[in-house]
């Protein structure tokens, strides 16, 4: 998975609790992305980063925040998880070209 790890790989949480997902890369790539994957919707961009402390919103950013304090780490936070945020979350990295390399994913279930 191109030097990308995601943690945790599986998580079950309750509605209203905060959740943080971590993406870690060893490739020193500048660009990092968070997507969610849901049946019938494909992959949808949540947030992305184009450098340390430089982030921007994607298509489905409501209810999510991100932070990138180091090149290698990109955190996705659900401030107050809802059942609609039950999904599989993928991190992707890119050296600054169009090609993106995806991590193994995190399965999140919000009860």
């Amino acid at each position, binding site marked *: 998975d191109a030097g990308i790890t995601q943690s945790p790989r599986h998580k079950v949480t309750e509605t209203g609790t905060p959740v943080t997902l971590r993406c870690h890369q060893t490739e020193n790539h500048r660009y990092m992305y968070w997507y969610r994957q849901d049946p019938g919707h*494909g*992959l*949808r*961009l949540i947030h992305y980063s*184009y450098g340390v402390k430089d982030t921007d919103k994607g*298509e489905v950013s409501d209810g999510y925040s991100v932070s990138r304090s180091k090149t290698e780490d990109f955190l996705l936070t659900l401030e107050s998880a809802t059942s609609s945020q039950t999904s599989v979350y993928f991190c992707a990295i*890119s050296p600054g*070209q169009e090609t993106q390399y*995806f991590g193994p994913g995190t399965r999140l279930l919000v009860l």
Partner: protein
Amino acid sequence: QQQVKQSPQSLIVQKGGIPIINCAYENTAFDYFPWYQQFPGKGPALLIAIRPDVSEKKEGRFTISFNKSAKQFSLHIMDSQPGDSATYFCAANSGAGSYQLTFGKGTKLSVIP
């Protein structure tokens, strides 16, 4: 909103057949069109990609055909094998310094022996 429309949603072919997955787009600023392959429980992996200045690109048994005037592109898998059973996503990137990808909704391919 930028969109990439992918069809069919699912596809079943016999081993050795040639499944074809189609995608259409509207935004003429798109200038990079990758295909990703995803196996169950795994992240998507880049399979093959094309730019609008060529009409066809082959890598092994995988071919992308691109029709710029129709704003359509398709993936063909020659001599399909059961190991090709996966979900395939097309995507597009709008260039001009934007490295965001817009994905189609995916096609689940099953190749039966």
